[in-house]
């Protein structure tokens, strides 16, 4: 069966960006759209790093809450290094995320955060001995595929 597939070029769009290095054109730095491919790629990478940090933070927080149950005192809270470390990592990650969002489209970059669910699912199995099952594997694959589809559009 012949499938008619007309690829309407999705990216014929919008404001033409300055061809190269808007970095040197400082006069209107704040006024959007002029993000180079390199900048967008860096944004993409920063979001991925953010998801790793946030997943690590979640694991630390989990360790932290376990420790709270063992030492439920105020002093115990202050010396709860997994908890404090997890919070700090969250903060650093959030700052990185904000910087990353500067270049590229929000509608492309924001859903990439779902990659952190993948890391959490994997880390839960490796560290906390949770059981991996078919649903989880399928979910991980679907999210990674979705991230790949979005990511491949990000430079355009």
């Amino acid at each position, binding site marked *: 069966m012949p499938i008619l597939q007309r690829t309407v070029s*999705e*990216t014929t*769009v*919008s404001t033409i960006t300055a061809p190269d290095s808007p970095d040197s054109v400082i006069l209107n730095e*704040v006024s*959007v759209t002029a993000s180079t491919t390199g900048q967008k790629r860096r944004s993409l990478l920063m979001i991925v790093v953010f998801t790793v940090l946030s997943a690590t933070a979640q694991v630390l927080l989990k360790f932290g809450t376990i420790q709270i149950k063992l030492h439920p005192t105020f002093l115990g809270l202050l010396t709860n290094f997994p908890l404090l470390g997890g919070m700090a990592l969250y903060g650093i990650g*959030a700052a990185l*995320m*904000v*910087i*990353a*969002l*500067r270049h590229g*489209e*929000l*509608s*492309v970059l*924001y*859903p990439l955060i*779902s990659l952190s*669910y993948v890391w959490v*699912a994997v880390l839960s199995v490796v560290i906390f001995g*949770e*059981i991996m*099952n*078919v*649903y*989880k*594997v*399928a*979910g*991980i*694959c*679907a*999210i*990674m*595929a*979705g*991230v*790949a*589809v*979005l990511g*491949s*559009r990000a430079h355009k």
Partner: protein
Amino acid sequence: MTTPISSIALVTFGSFIGSFSALGFKAGSRRLEKNLHSLLTNWPLAAGVAGYLLSSVFFIIGLKNGELSILFPMVSTGYIWTMLWSRLFFKEPFTRGKFLGLALILAGCVLLGLGTRQTG
């Protein structure tokens, strides 16, 4: 364990607020400059942080009761809102790639949720 409607509502509302905080982050990141004054007067960024914290409160309360397999996919509905706001406020076009990518991610979240039910 059944999932109370209130939990579903809380988590869904939390992700709705969270989608606005994404807007604040994006608008705020455009205004970023390397000095303290501009950072402190960056009101979209401040609104984004406030929205983010507020949405976390809703998540924490909502996730206390109910099954993660139901509630977890609700968290990811925030991405749909974000895509909508991006078009409305930042004129980012809808594309087939974005729809496909988002659909895969949402499906993945549903599956991960089901996976947590399996292991109990």
